C-alpha cells in the first residue's frame, strides 16, 4: 500500500464488513486461520521458508489451507478474509467462502447467488459471472488422451497458440477453438444449463474459455469480473473433499476496491456536554444501536 494506505485500509475494512454481513445472512461462519503453516504439498501459493529444520509456508491459498486442516467431511459453510502471498512479500487480500457437503448443484447456485448479493450490497451492480466446465473439456478431448495435459495448460494460460502447436487434425483444432471461444446464455451441457436457468440473472454466462487452473477444481469453475477493472473480481469452482462435493470462491479485494465507490455514511448522533453526561448518553445510544460521534 502507498502513502494513502489509511484510506485504502479503511476501504478494505468497509468492504470486508459488508461482505461479512452478507455471508452471515447466508448462514456462513467466519474462520480465522494461522498465518504460518508447516509446509505440505496440498498447500498452494504462499511464501515458503525454512528455519534450517522444517519447511513452512506463510499465508497460503486459503481453500487449500482449509482442506489441509479439515479432517472430516461434515456439511460446512465457512467464510474467511485473509492476505494470500504470491511467493515473496507481495500478496492479495482475499474474501472467500466454502460450502462443503451439500447438494452439488445447489452449492454452486448458492455460492454464485451469495456473490451476486455480496457485490450488490457493496453497490456494485455492473459485473458478470462466467461459468465454465472442466468436464466439457474432458469429454471434448477424450479422443486425444495423450495431449490432455497440453490442452489444459493452454486453457489455464488462455493461449490457443499452444493448441496450434499440437499434432492434431485441423478439424480437431477447429473444434477446440470453437469451445475455447464459446460464451452464451445457454449451452449443450445440462449441469451448466441448470445453473443458468435457476440463477436467471442476465449477468451470468456459460463460457467454456473459463477454466481455472487450481488443481482441486473438478467441474464447474467461474470468474467474476467488471468492466470497471482490468482483472477479475474473483473466481471459484467445484471440488471434492474426501467423498463430499464442495464449492468455493474468493474475491480479490484489491480488484473489488477498484470498482467500489463507497457506501453512504450513516447519520451519527453528535453528543456534547459535560464528560459524565455525554459518556452516559453515548452508552445509552449505542445500546439502542444508534451510531454516535462524541465531542472530545
Amino acid at each position: 500500500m502507498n502513502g494513502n494506505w489509511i484510506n485504502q485500509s479503511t476501504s478494505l475494512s468497509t468492504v470486508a464488513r459488508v461482505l461479512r454481513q452478507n455471508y452471515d445472512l447466508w448462514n456462513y461462519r467466519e474462520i480465522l486461520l494461522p498465518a504460518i503453516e508447516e509446509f505440505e504439498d496440498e498447500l498452494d501459493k504462499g511464501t515458503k521458508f525454512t528455519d534450517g529444520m522444517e519447511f513452512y509456508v506463510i499465508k497460503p491459498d486459503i481453500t487449500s489451507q482449509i482442506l489441509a486442516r479439515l479432517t472430516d467431511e461434515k456439511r460446512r459453510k465457512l467464510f474467511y478474509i485473509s492476505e494470500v502471498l504470491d511467493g515473496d512479500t507481495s500478496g492479495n487480500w482475499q474474501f472467500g467462502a466454502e460450502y462443503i457437503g451439500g447438494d452439488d448443484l445447489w452449492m454452486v447456485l448458492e455460492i454464485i447467488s451469495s456473490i451476486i448479493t455480496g457485490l450488490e450490497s457493496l453497490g456494485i451492480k455492473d459485473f458478470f459471472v462466467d461459468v465454465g466446465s472442466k468436464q466439457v473439456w474432458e469429454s471434448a478431448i477424450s479422443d486425444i488422451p495423450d495431449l490432455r495435459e497440453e490442452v489444459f495448460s493452454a486453457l489455464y494460460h488462455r493461449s490457443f497458440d499452444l493448441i496450434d502447436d499440437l499434432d492434431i487434425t485441423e478439424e480437431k483444432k477447429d473444434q477446440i477453438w470453437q469451445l475455447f471461444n464459446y460464451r452464451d446464455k445457454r449451452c449443450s451441457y445440462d449441469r451448466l444449463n441448470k445453473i443458468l436457468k435457476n440463477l436467471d440473472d442476465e449477468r451470468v454466462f456459460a463460457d467454456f474459455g473459463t477454466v481455472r487452473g487450481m488443481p482441486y477444481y473438478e467441474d464447474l469453475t467461474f470468474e467474476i469480473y467488471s468492466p470497471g477493472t482490468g482483472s477479475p473480481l474473483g473466481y471459484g469452482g467445484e471440488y471434492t473433499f474426501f467423498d463430499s462435493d464442495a464449492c468455493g470462491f474468493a474475491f480479490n479485494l484489491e480488484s473489488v476496491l477498484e470498482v467500489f465507490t463507497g457506501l453512504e455514511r450513516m447519520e451519527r448522533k453528535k453528543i456534547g456536554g459535560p464528560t459524565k453526561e455525554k459518556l452516559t448518553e453515548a452508552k445509552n445510544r449505542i445500546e439502542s444501536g444508534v451510531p454516535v460521534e462524541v465531542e472530545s
Partner: protein
Amino acid sequence: MKIVLPSGRLLEDSISVLRQTIPGLTIEKNRELTHSNGNHEVLLAKPADVPTYVEEGADIGITGRDVVHEKSPDVFVPLSLPFGQCRVSVARMDEDSTTPRQMDGYRIATEYPSITREFFRSLGVAIEVIVVDGSTELAPSAGIADAVVDVVQTGNTLAANGLVEAKTILESSALLLVNRISQKTQFDRVNELVYSIREVVKNGS
C-alpha cells in the same frame, strides 16, 4: 476499440492482417504513436510492452510469442498469426563445443531472463543470468557472459559475432492478444474481429 501494435519488424504484417478485417485502417508514417481510425484507436508500442498495454486496458494487441512467454501476461491469446517467425535459442562461442546440459556455472546474457531460467531449470543446470537490453550477441566477446539466449531469424548476426546456435528453446511467431475483460464485456465485437482475422489467416490472404 483500442488496438496496440508492435513497432519494428512486426508492424507491416500486423497492419496488413488488420487492414483486411478493419477496412480503411491506416497508420500515418510520422512519429506519432497514437492514430485514430474511425471507431478504432491504434497505439504503437515496443513489442515487449504490448502485453502490458493489453493487460492494462487496450482491447487487442499483436506481439511475438517470445515476448508473451517471457512476460506471461494475464491476457487471452485466441490466435497465432503467420508472420514474425523466429526462434529463441541458446548460442555459444564458435570455439566452445559445450552443450546446454554442460553449461553449469555459465553466465548467460539475455533479454529473456524468465525463458532462460525456465529452460536451464528444466535441464537441472545452474546458470547465472545477465539481463541485457539489446545487442545481446556482444556479451560473450565483451567478456561479460559465456553464452547467450537470444532471438534468431537467419543466424547471420550470431555468426558475425562469432556465435553458433547450440539449442532452440522456443519457436516464435506473432500472436493476437485480447484483454481478458474486453473479451467478455465486448464479446460480440471482439469475437467478430477475432473470427475475421482467423478467416484471413486461414485463407492465407
